[in-house]
């Protein structure tokens, strides 16, 4: 083999930019200080389901209101996770595992309290009819869940009418669509038209390999999302500023 000086050929920009701090240190700075909450948040960050449950048990037996622990502990832990993901300190699998742990935690609280906790909002996710590429959608769904949204995941290759039916039934604050093929993305327009026809005006966030901003801008409800991480931000934006598609586009259209 030929021996070269790699710095003459390429630059590992990722390494140049990697934060000084370890993820653990960065997280440590963000955990809440409360003795009972801290271990829960930390176990969420670490994605340790058993530890989450253990922490919740302790907190509840020490008198904390179970339902309050959702926003007060689980979501706080997830907040640390998504913040560090956005900052590039941690990576997706960590988020996925934390989200799984959080769901276990919520499930546990439900059982303990016997109450259905209030959710931040509902989002319906799907992959366009004819398309089986669902990894992007899975990431979108995971990040939405990680951010406290209730996700109705219709799966992949979802017929247009089924999407409409789900919107009618679930009344989500947002619908997402993913398409990776130029042949399947046209289904989004159909979904849009049928929604319009039935009088639904919810934002329809669309993304995935084949999809681009120009295409999505062509139908009334379309908001283009470039990265999966945009999905929860869009949902947050809707909760805060209402579901005006024009405003959403202003905020999220990058091109």
């Amino acid at each position, binding site marked *: *083999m*030929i*021996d*070269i000086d*790699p710095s003459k*050929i*390429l630059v*590992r*920009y*990722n*390494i140049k*930019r*990697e934060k000084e701090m*370890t*993820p653990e240190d960065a997280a440590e700075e963000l955990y809440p200080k409360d003795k009972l909450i801290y271990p829960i948040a930390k176990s969420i960050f670490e994605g340790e389901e058993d530890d989450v449950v253990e922490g919740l048990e302790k907190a509840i037996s020490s008198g904390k209101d179970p339902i309050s622990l959702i926003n007060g502990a689980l979501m706080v832990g997830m907040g640390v996770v998504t913040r560090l*993901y956005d900052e*590039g300190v*941690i*990576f*997706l*699998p960590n988020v*996925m*595992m934390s989200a*799984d742990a959080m769901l276990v935690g919520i499930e546990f609280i439900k059982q303990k309290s016997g109450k259905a906790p209030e959710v931040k909002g509902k989002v319906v996710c799907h992959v366009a009819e*004819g398309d*089986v590429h*669902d*990894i992007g959608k*899975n*990431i979108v769904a*995971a990040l939405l869940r990680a951010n406290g949204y209730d996700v109705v995941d219709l*799966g*992949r*290759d*979802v017929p247009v009418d089924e999407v409409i039916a789900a919107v009618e039934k679930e009344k989500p604050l947002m619908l997402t669509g993913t398409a990776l093929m*130029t*042949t399947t993305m*046209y289904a989004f327009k159909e979904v849009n038209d049928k929604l319009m026809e039935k009088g639904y005006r919810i934002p329809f966030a669309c993304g995935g390999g084949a999809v681009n901003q120009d295409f999505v801008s062509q139908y009334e409800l379309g908001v283009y999302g470039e990265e999966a991480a945009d999905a929860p931000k869009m949902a947050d934006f809707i909760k805060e500023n209402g579901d005006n598609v024009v405003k959403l586009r202003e905020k999220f259209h990058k091109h």
Partner: protein
Amino acid sequence: MAATRYTKMAYAKADDMVFGKAIKPVKAGLGLEIGAGYTTPEVNYAPRPEAGASKEKLVKEYERITTDIMARMVQIGAPAVVLETEHVQQMSNNPSWGAEVAHAQKTIMEDYHDEYGIKCALRHTIGDIREDRNFLQLRGDKYNVFLEAFEECAKAGADILAVESMGGKEIFDHAILRNDMAGILFGIGVLGSMDMEMIWTDITSIAKKNNVISSGDTDCAQANTAMFIAGGLLDKNLAHTIAIIARAISGARSLVAYEAGAVGPGKDCGYENTICKAIAGVPIAQEGKTSTCAHSDLMGNLVMQCCDLWSNESVEYHGEFGGTTVQCWSETLAYDCALMNVALDSGNEKILRDMFVASDIYRDAQGYVLAYPHAYRVGQAIVKDGNDIYLRSKNAALESIKIIEEGAKGKLTLSRFEANALADAKAAFEGLTDDKDKFMSDCLTKYKDEVKVFRPENYGL
């Protein structure tokens, strides 16, 4: 079933491997020989979305594509070309569609061959249609249609048969986003290999019957998915060190095609092909810096190292200033091949190969492991336990980890994130049993529970 396992390497040493030459060259199509001392462009294309409206439109579209490519090749003096048609759904679900396309393309290619003497061959890659909306359906009705599609295309003029098969994907999709090493190994190395053994035995007998080439598979559905999720240097969805472990395992999997009778050329998007070539001596197609029309990767030059066909993966058919996309990309491929062929003719092939490697070996852990001397070692790890599809996959994973660790002591830099992911993965693989049966029953229990779309009967389990 009829898989003859590889338990030793086709090449005596890594340095013997080079582009354009394979231990077992393959004759195909009209005057072409693959791996016989020269490299050949393999052009891939996708019809425009509108073209799928009817069979007539689709056939017409492929006729245009074929003529465009052949015309450009003779205009620039390219001695040979392979066309690869990756079926769109309709063409495999309705085998007669695929067959008509193959026939139309072959007719044009024959005309060019007759008029100019240009060497050429047609590869048809059948779509793996064995799934319904939520589940893989690897056996049963869909499988029959699938095999029929091969048969019809072979009869109608396709010279080379291929597929990108999907066995194991339901487990892999779940595992890859969770850093679940056992799941990755089970999906790719075990389930993927089992499914491949079935289909490649059948494809090979169809090919033999029709006197065409049973070529090979790629772990697109899994290893490439990992590579794509890992993405570029700045993406943060998956550690590149994990993606390359999946790739190493896929070497053990894609090998099964050759064990079941395929003879190459392996499919372009199989980045594991260098491993397969080292073991099986078959010619391979590869894609990299000249398939940016289809995807981005971090080993644009490196993958040329041992290719016999050089491909653009796929490009949508439409116009550019310089002609149609298929003309532009086929021309670029042809010049890449001309460079390699010059090297071969002048005895400089090893220098050029090593320059290809040096370009990307330190760009990323993936390129580092796939560099031919390392890929060869992964191959050795596979054949060491060649008869055990589980153990050999695990060996491949562990060897790739070892290779990266060695690299990281030298010029290969890892981000802290990559290094941590690697360490965790290593621990996970080292913790796995050596007993295939135990691994199988553990996985069956675990994934029947965790992955609701997993259906053991797809694998005869």
